[in-house]
């Protein structure tokens, strides 16, 4: 029941920490993603980008493009 938790705490110290947490989370994820694409191998990226263009009859085994 929401009424039991709604006003459970009368005050919360330092509400300003919430926006800071949110920014830190976002910024870390962003940096990790940047780092990844910077270090990613060209062959893997090319393979991923070509996925929609591979026709159903493509049988050269490119789907097992292992380890990339």
């Amino acid at each position, binding site marked *: *029941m*929401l*009424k039991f*938790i*709604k*006003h*459970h*705490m*009368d*005050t*919360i110290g330092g*509400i*300003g920490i*919430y*926006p800071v*947490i*949110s*920014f830190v*989370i*976002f910024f870390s*994820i*962003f940096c990790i*993603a*940047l780092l*990844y*694409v910077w*270090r*990613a*191998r060209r062959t*893997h*990226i*090319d*393979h*991923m*980008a*070509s*996925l*929609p*263009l591979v026709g*159903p*009859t*493509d*049988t050269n*085994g490119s*789907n*097992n*493009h*292992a*380890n*990339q």
Partner: protein
Amino acid sequence: MIERFQYDNRIVKNFLFITILWGVVGMLVGLIAALQLVVPALNFSEWTTFGRLRPLHTNAVIFAFVGNAIFAGAYYSLQRLLKTRMFSDVLSKIHFWGWQLIIVSAAITLPLGMTQGKEYAELEWPIDIAIALVWVLFGINMFGTILKRRERHLYVAIWFYIATWVTVAMLHIVNSISIPVTLGKSYSWYAGVQDALVQWWYGHNAVAFFLTTPFLGLMYYFLPKAANRPVYSYKLSIIHFWSLIFIYIWAGPHHLLYSALPEWAQSLGVVFSVMLIAPSWGGMLNGLLTLRGAWDRVREDPVLKFFVVAVTCYGMATLEGPLLSIKFINSIAHFTDWIIAHVHIGGIGWNGFLTFGMVYWLVPRLFGTKLYSVKLANVHFWLGTLGIIFYAIPLYFAGFFQSLMWKQFTPDGFLVYKNFLDTLLEIKYAYWLRALGGSIYLIGAFVMVYNVVKTVKAGKLIANEDAEAPALEKVKVTGGHWHTWIERRPIQMLVFSLIAVAIGGIIEMVPTFLVKSNVPTISSVKPYTPLELQGRDIYVREGCYTCHSQMIRPFRSETERYGEYSKAGEFVYDHPFQWGSKRTGPDLHRVGGKYPHSWHYYHMWDPTTMSPGSLMPAYPHLLENALDTTTTRRKIEAMITLGVPYDPEFPAQANAELRQQGEGIVADLKKAGIETSSDREIIALIAYLQRVGTDIKAKPATVATAQ
């Protein structure tokens, strides 16, 4: 080892055809609603007033048109990107028919006035449960397909589908939590400020995760397909995905700027909304630049034309959105038709055009033939583009100028436009032009229907398309990058996406729920009387919130026009909140006590008797219909469960008090020469309207309480 299998094209065809059908129906309802704003006589009956048709329009275009388009595109691309048939044909069919059943029940219940009164989440609790169930079945089907795939890595489109699925599930469940009173009536679990925050966290992310992320998935699949070249930058698409889902989830509070929402939550919404420009434009440029070296083909291929305009509209809407989140711009644009123009750039530009492009690309392929007429598709393209322009530009003008009129003062410090209606009548021309734009757009859609029918007749459905691919070897893959690790593991992807979106929601909402100081209590604010509560439910049922806000912002132009600005503590018993998001009529938060009972009586019977030239629908049925008092007790009990402080014995006496208060209003109306009885719906509505926003004016001792 090469395996042979077949793609299921029938389910794609079914979703695609029903997309077209609901699209036309939803736009038609939108056009009727647009015309009702200029010709009130078109409101016809109590079941087809603007307040009931507008939710029908929004639900139809969002969940029926765009929803089915998502499913059509996802079922087509998932099978091909994963090199396998859908996990289960039976689940696909149940998903299809279940979703259509939900849409049909929405089309029946919304005109009947069964609504939870929260925008884009109007559907009542039994339908909400059905939506959750069908959505889960879709999820099982999608993840089942992913698990039996013959392609090791998941293409970026599939990440967008996964993020869509998990976020929509979370948003829908959290926002729809309510206490049922009857089969067709429930009260939101949340009240006032909290309800507003949850609703706009949902509302904003419905835009983000129902209208945007799945369509970005479709863009990343169908645009390279149609252009026959890989996406401009796959690396950019990775950044696009992670930044978008991490930022979007925070931006909801920008719908509540200058409202009674705590300041820190508003600021959080603004900052993240402005940051959204970056990933959105990254995605838009990625889409447009995919066409590098293929621009000559854009001239001839209607599919690419539709895609280019769709992606451009995405760019315009996602630049405008962050700008609208800046407090100063928001103070002008909010509550006006500017916002209606903004959402339609997204709706008919981005969603509509991407869907049309997809239809023209898919139908010939599903039916093994050529498009019946490229020329007609081009005609559709131009009609659609003109429609968007005629729709949006007049409304941008109207919104901007009406807002200035609301804020205009004479040199002596009085409002120039004292009567709200005067500002509305000034922009009536724009409503006509908007209806014209909508008509042109709709004619374009009919041209598409003809073209599709002709194409289908010329071909034959390839219900099961042969395909072959090597089986996925069960090799133990070691090493590699952590992100390629995620790309191989859909379940982990699901979990990470859920964490990403859940953190945002929790951090935004939990403090508002926990901290008492965020919602300052006002001792004179008391629960509604039974009659007022029934009247409030009529207010919700008639969809008054689609045109009237109950949120006076702390601007001099608003306090001068409406009265004291709205405080968070005034809404603590409002299940659901009714702040509204658009003022086609004036704000009603201080309407209580402003007019005599008789004014409201005549005004509801025919608004033009009290406000000559009024564009509001007439509600003569409220004067005729008897109030259903059988639900009073259960309603009060539900409110007690939700924490509204009525006495435990009160539900049993509720109807007696209801009648007593009704008799008082009837006696007062009689003095004004109006003969009616206390069991009419109008009496309850008058009781509610006279109560709205009056509690803070009263001294605690003199307030009429429910006890």
